[in-house]
């Protein structure tokens, strides 16, 4: 499958353009060329001086039918498997290589295993993988690759604030696109681009999107929407940053008792990418452990080179321990291999479906299909002090119409006083620019949501939802809060 030769180099930021490849890394590459080359070029310590000779990982066995369930239930005696990287025993990635300096893309063996993984699930056209230190790092690198001070980036109207916070200090602003239960609305995206006022600045050329288990709303884009969005990206020449940490946590309908192992995973934007305009960011954080600080970016070779260049003069390649683990796990003797990994993630998906079912039993609401979160809609208009006449009163045509924002702040404080932390929508909302954006329906009027997770323990969920129920009752009855 050939990638259409679309030139996307105009999307690079000035910073990326100015960056020269690190000459020391170029030398490092040369050391690999001749077999008996003696290198006195780089300051690499000899591996005999590392104080560690062997690292062994004891991990869940994936030989079970439902590995996650067996792992949880088994506790200390759960069936486990061991694999190791060392300087002397046969293994997929010897320790002396794994703990040495290497190339910004990651060690070739580690790069190969994530490439195979990506090919397995997404069959991308002609893309290359670059290892990164988790999704925050991967996305931050993509932002720097593409973003110029003064740029506007597109994202869902409610987005994960740790990510949207990142480029602000670079001078990049956000434009929110309206969503519904099914995620970003393609027609709204098109509207923003088609009606862009050039006086505001360069028309947005980057779209940041979380297509599965969107954070915070939990929505997942249908295949049809993904195709429409990609087609809009082609027409308006956008780069797409596909942030997909919950890819494997896609569930069947809430009414189904469980998600079948054989239910296929959704088609990613990467799998639709014929132009090379998708930068997909994957992470092991939600499916293995966040502290692994390991993930990867899949892109065309062109952007890969620039990412490597940036990596080589900042974080360098990821840590050897993580690369050693994934290489042994996916290709080593005694490792999980791709089939085992697939069983693990399908089993994890089933487990999270069960948790979501438990949560929903405690809480009867229509909710969205995926991820780790439930996006709870609060019927705020039923509150005794709800008002919808603020715009008339203030005579400001751009001001919010309602006092939803203030009421939700109160609700949040009440929850805290009653011993419950839950995320208010305000944390995730991208505010509009009154001068340019459509202010008919400002996001401040639509903040009547709370984000709750079902990733915690059953006890926490039960207690938490009990407190929430009680707090909502008190809130709507407008009971006087006890004085602080």
């Amino acid at each position, binding site marked *: 499958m050939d990638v259409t030769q679309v030139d996307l180099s105009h999307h690079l930021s000035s910073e990326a353009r100015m960056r020269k490849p690190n000459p020391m890394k170029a*030398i490092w590459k040369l050391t690999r060329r001749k077999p008996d080359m003696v290198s*006195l070029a*780089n300051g690499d310590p000899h591996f005999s001086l590392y104080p560690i000779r062997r690292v062994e990982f004891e991990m869940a066995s994936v030989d079970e039918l439902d590995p996650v369930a067996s792992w*949880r239930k088994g506790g200390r005696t759960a069936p486990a498997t061991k694999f190791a990287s060392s300087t002397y025993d046969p293994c997929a990635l010897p320790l002396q290589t794994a703990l040495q300096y290497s190339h910004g893309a990651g060690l070739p063996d580690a790069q190969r295993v994530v490439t195979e993984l990506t090919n397995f699930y997404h069959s991308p056209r002609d893309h290359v993988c670059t290892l990164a230190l988790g999704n925050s790092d991967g996305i931050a690198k993509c932002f720097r690759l593409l973003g110029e001070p003064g740029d506007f980036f597109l994202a869902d109207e409610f987005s994960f604030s740790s990510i949207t916070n*990142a480029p602000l200090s670079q001078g990049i602003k956000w434009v929110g696109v309206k969503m519904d239960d099914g995620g970003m609305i393609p027609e709204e995206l098109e509207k923003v681009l088609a009606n862009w006022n050039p006086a505001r600045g360069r028309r947005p050329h980057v779209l940041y999107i979380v297509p599965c288990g969107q954070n915070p709303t939990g929505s997942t884009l249908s295949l049809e929407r993904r195709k429409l969005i990609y087609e809009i990206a082609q027409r308006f020449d956008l780069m797409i940053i596909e942030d997909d940490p919950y890819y494997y946590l896609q569930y069947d309908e809430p009414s189904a008792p469980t998600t079948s192992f054989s239910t296929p995973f959704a088609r990613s934007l990467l799998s639709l990418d014929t132009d090379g305009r998708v930068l997909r960011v994957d992470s092991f954080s939600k499916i293995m452990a966040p502290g692994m600080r390991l993930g990867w970016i899949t892109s065309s070779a062109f952007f890969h080179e620039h990412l490597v260049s940036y990596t080589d003069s900042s974080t360098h390649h990821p840590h*050897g321990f993580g690369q050693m683990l994934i290489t042994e796990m996916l290709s080593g003797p005694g490792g999980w291999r791709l089939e085992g990994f697939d069983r693990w993630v399908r089993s994890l998906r089933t487990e999270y479906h069960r948790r979501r079912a438990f949560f929903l039993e405690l809480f009867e609401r229509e909710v969205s299909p995926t991820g780790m*979160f439930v996006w709870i809609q609060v019927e705020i208009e039923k509150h005794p002090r709800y008002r919808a006449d603020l715009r008339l009163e203030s005579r400001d045509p751009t001001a919010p119409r309602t006092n939803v924002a203030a009421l939700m702040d109160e609700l949040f404080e009440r929850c805290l006083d009653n011993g419950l932390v839950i995320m208010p929508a305000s944390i995730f909302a991208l505010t509009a620019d009154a001068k340019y954006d459509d202010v008919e329906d400002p996001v401040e009027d639509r903040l009547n949501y709370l984000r709750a997770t079902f990733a915690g323990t059953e006890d926490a969920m039960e207690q938490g939802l009990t407190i929430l129920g009680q707090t909502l009752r008190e809130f709507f009855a407008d009971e006087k809060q006890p004085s602080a």
Partner: protein
Amino acid sequence: MSSFEKQQKAIDLSHHLSKVALARETSPLKGLARYFGRPGLITLAGGTPSPDYFPFAAISGDALVPESFAVSTSHSESSLSWLWKLFGGSSKEKTSPITIPKFSEHAGDVNLATALQYGTATGLPQLSKFINDFVGKIYQPGYSDWTTLVQTGNTDGWSRVVLTLCNPGEAFITEDWTYPSALASSQPYGIHPVGVPMDSEGMRSDALRKLLSEWDESARGCKRPHVMYTIPVGQNPTGVTMNVPRKKEIYDICVEYDIIIVEDDPYYFLQMGSYVPKFERASQASSVDSAKWLGSLSPSYVKLDYQGRVIRLDTFSKTIAPGARLGFFTCNPRIAERLERAGETSSQAPCGFGQSLIAQLLTTWQFEGYVRWLQGLSVQYKVRRDFLIDSLAEEFHLRMSLGTAGSRAGCIVYTASGRPRRDAEMTEKFASNDKPYFSFVPPSAGMFIWLKMHFENVQGFRAGDEDTLEMKLWTKLAEAGVLIGPGRYFNAEDEDLGTAEGHFRISFSFASDTELKKAAVIFAKVLRDFFENPQ
């Protein structure tokens, strides 16, 4: 050293922060973290996966013992057999197991449930504790409210620091030869280096003062620099080490001109003492005890820092392994807070595996064990350095002299020319037809030897040829099977430096004894041919 009571807190240096650093807000999610401490609080807020789902039961490692490398060389063992015995001889090494379970038996033990969870940006508690204790004992900061923060290696550390302190277009001070990755970090933002010449102690204080006092903003196109990036021990690439009197002079100038010093110090523990030629090398039969050895190390800038204007970068890359991607900052709290904010929206925290394995290793070894390990390492590097120079002495005619001019004033310089001689003696006498190929000052710390090439002795040399000759020779060496570092990569300002000067940086950190010897032989052959006929 002033007593704790006399130590002041860091002064206010927030005016040094860049626009980007000032614009960083606390990530709103992290801002909620202040609520999380309340007892009995139920959270349905964060998206942290339960440790039950981490598919790890334990990680373990086979670690070497702190005494793995001897601290004295003894006459009875030839350096060859003693140094290289570890090659392929893993069964002879003594190792002890370290294990990190998912859940710990005793509260306060390192465990994977914590190490592999979100939230270790300031460092795993056990690792932070070790680091703080270590910094207090070894570096002895000169002000009271210093703090540490983990990072993912010094290149990342400097990359975060430069963007926290400098705005695009600004200049920062550095030695006139320096580490290329540091320059590569700042270059795309238009943040450019201004080089200060060095001498036997490293950066010259008189040249620094001149640069700062005569800074002409309109001629230079930017404000006077307020940040210095320096590698004072085992300077990369020149190998020079700076001692206390010079550090004091430079620190005082930085106080006067309000400059933040970023001390990049990866080779601090690879301080080896001076090179002594083989035939003069007495055996040190008695080992130097650890406390004495620590006392002999040139102190860090941090010790002289009474205002909190030094940001120190430490890394485990050279003392444990480069793949650990782990190190730490030592600096004042305001800067640490801004560095933490920068990390939050990028790499977040160093890898949990590395943090937990290294925390466990260090807490098993304890402070004394780690110091013993470091001492052993320094001797290893000393032996390697000595071996490389000894090999050069065997392949070339090496002559010792005292440098008198420029950056070599006061140094012992070794000059190499072609050897028709049969023995490896070095001599003061200089045969009149011995045209030098290169010369160097042996490093007393670090991993590198910085060779100054004497291209003026190349057949048919014309002024201006240095650049092309450097690359030509580099290529010939690569073709002959030896890779070395071309000097131009280390030039801070990308300009022509002297006439007839090319440089190379050679490392003795990695190659085996056979390889070092082989490299010296190839080097001699290629140089002889090249100087006679550079085509």
